[in-house]
């Protein structure tokens, strides 16, 4: 039944054209000479030049990368801890509340998360800036990390940990030597997810950023409210290129490591 019928070919072609055409147009017109974005007037890379000379964009990009790096790193630690507690922690007081608080931010509308955090920061008198954006981003992305990591923890063979404990490892050693290497791919994808979510976020950052710190999405937002601009097309092209290279590399690496793991498992079975 694995035939490629004309229907399947058409739906795939149209579907992927729909997914990719808008981005292709964006990339093509970022090399447009004209200031009028929708009228083609010859090839030019001048908008990339204007973009790279635009201090405000560069500053915002730097703030965004800092926020994304710090928040995704803290979120990975907290999210992995939370996943471990949920899967291996057994019973403790308030477990239901804990699991609710981990899942709720995943479905919470961003406007509500943003509003509530802003009200908290004002309530405790914390000045809005890089720190508040980092706190906000860490909070929602740790929940994504914990979902990714716990799905890996659920599926792995617990007897490996038990064997390590029987052989005299302390729980900490067993975690470091057995559990962590096995869940490492999930921890890394969790970090990548947290990093991208933070780079991408407009709504929560708008609520929690102050005049001292502007992120790239906030900057993009304020310039596209007025309409399409060639500079933003150039910026989008750069971002799309970076993300594509990153995702494709990551998928090749995971595919390789999955193949290697399969080979190792087969070798282990033969022993």
């Amino acid at each position, binding site marked *: *039944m*694995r035939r*490629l019928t004309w*229907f*399947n070919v058409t*739906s*795939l072609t149209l*579907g*992927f054209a*729909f*997914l*990719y055409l*808008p*981005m292709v*147009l*964006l990339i093509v017109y970022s090399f447009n000479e004209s200031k009028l974005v*929708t*009228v083609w007037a010859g090839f030019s890379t001048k908008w990339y030049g204007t973009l790279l000379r635009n201090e405000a964009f560069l500053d915002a990009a730097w703030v965004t990368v800092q926020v994304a790096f710090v928040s995704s790193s803290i979120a990975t630690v*907290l*999210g992995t801890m939370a996943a*471990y*507690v949920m899967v291996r*922690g057994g019973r403790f007081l*308030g477990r239901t509340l*804990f699991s609710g*608080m981990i899942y*709720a931010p995943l*479905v*919470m*509308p*961003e*406007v*509500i998360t943003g*509003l*509530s*955090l802003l*009200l*908290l920061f*004002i*309530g405790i008198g914390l000045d809005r800036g890089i720190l508040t954006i980092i706190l906000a981003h*860490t*909070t929602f992305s740790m929940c994504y990390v*914990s979902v990714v990591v716990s799905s890996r923890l659920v599926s792995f063979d617990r007897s490996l940990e038990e064997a390590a404990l029987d052989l005299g490892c302390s*729980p900490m050693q067993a975690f470091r030597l057995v559990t962590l290497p096995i869940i490492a791919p999930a921890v890394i994808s969790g970090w990548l997810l947290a990093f*991208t979510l933070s780079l991408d976020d*407009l*709504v929560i950052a708008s*609520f929690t950023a102050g005049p001292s710190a502007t992120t790239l*999405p906030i900057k*993009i937002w304020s310039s596209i*409210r007025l309409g*399409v601009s060639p500079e933003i*097309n150039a910026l*989008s092209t750069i*971002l*799309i290129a970076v993300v*594509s290279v*990153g*995702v*494709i590399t990551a998928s090749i690496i995971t595919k390789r490591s999955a193949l290697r793991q399969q080979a190792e498992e087969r070798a282990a079975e033969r022993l």
Partner: protein
Amino acid sequence: MRRAVLILTPYLWLLALFLVPFIIVLKISLSDTALAIPPYTPTLDFAAGWQGFKDFLGALDLENFTFLSTDDLYWKAYLSSVRIALIATMLTLLVGYPIAYGMARAPEHWRATLMLLVILPFWTSFLIRVYSWMGILSGEGYLNQFLLWTGLISEPLTILNTPVAVYIGIVYTYLPFMILPIYAALERMDGSLLEAAEDLGCSRVTAFWLITIPLSKNGIIAGCFLVFIPTIGEFVIPSLLGGSQTLMIGKVLWEEFFNNRDWPVASAVAVILLLILIIPIILFQRNEQKQREADG
């Protein structure tokens, strides 16, 4: 001891930065608007002790919620958000199902690549993906240029800043969320069932309705919730593509907060938005639970 640290660190973080902020929203939604900083009364005054707490409780009321129910802007915004989310979810299903179906029927060695192609846009900036449609749909945009060139229309169509543009934006940005669960369900399906149906005299179309659709039901339900739930509170898409014609509650909340600086009303809008979302969220959780049990 170590276990306590392990549990308490993420627990306290979430309590402080998720639960407490939410309680603050609830509290402010019950307060009165004031021309001050912060722009609401009463504020909880710890220095005044027990009396301060009593004054604080005494001044709370449902005034903002009464206001929301009398001003029909809010009712209309809630209803129109739910309607837009429902229609957009159906459209996403109609567009996403054939793609997921084509992927599941594609040769085995293509599938990983097709999967990557569906996921790739999801990693690309949401804002940029919405923005890319502004250039396509505007009056002198690429779509109108193309249609005028083919001679199908003689006057440019107005699409940007109408609900149609919002639907296109939602379908486009949320498509991966619909495709992936349906694809997962279809891929697991046993192809010999279809062969059996055809051997027993079913036409292809009948077999599709009687076998493929029911077997991918869980994927369809999951995909629909994954699109519907975030769409209700959507802010970026209606603001960039919908113009002033499209009323959605996420946008109303944003404007109430940033433009009108009415924090109590913005908080009340948030509380009601959350109440609306509780039902679909619970249904979604149940569906997931059921599926896990069926798998396990």
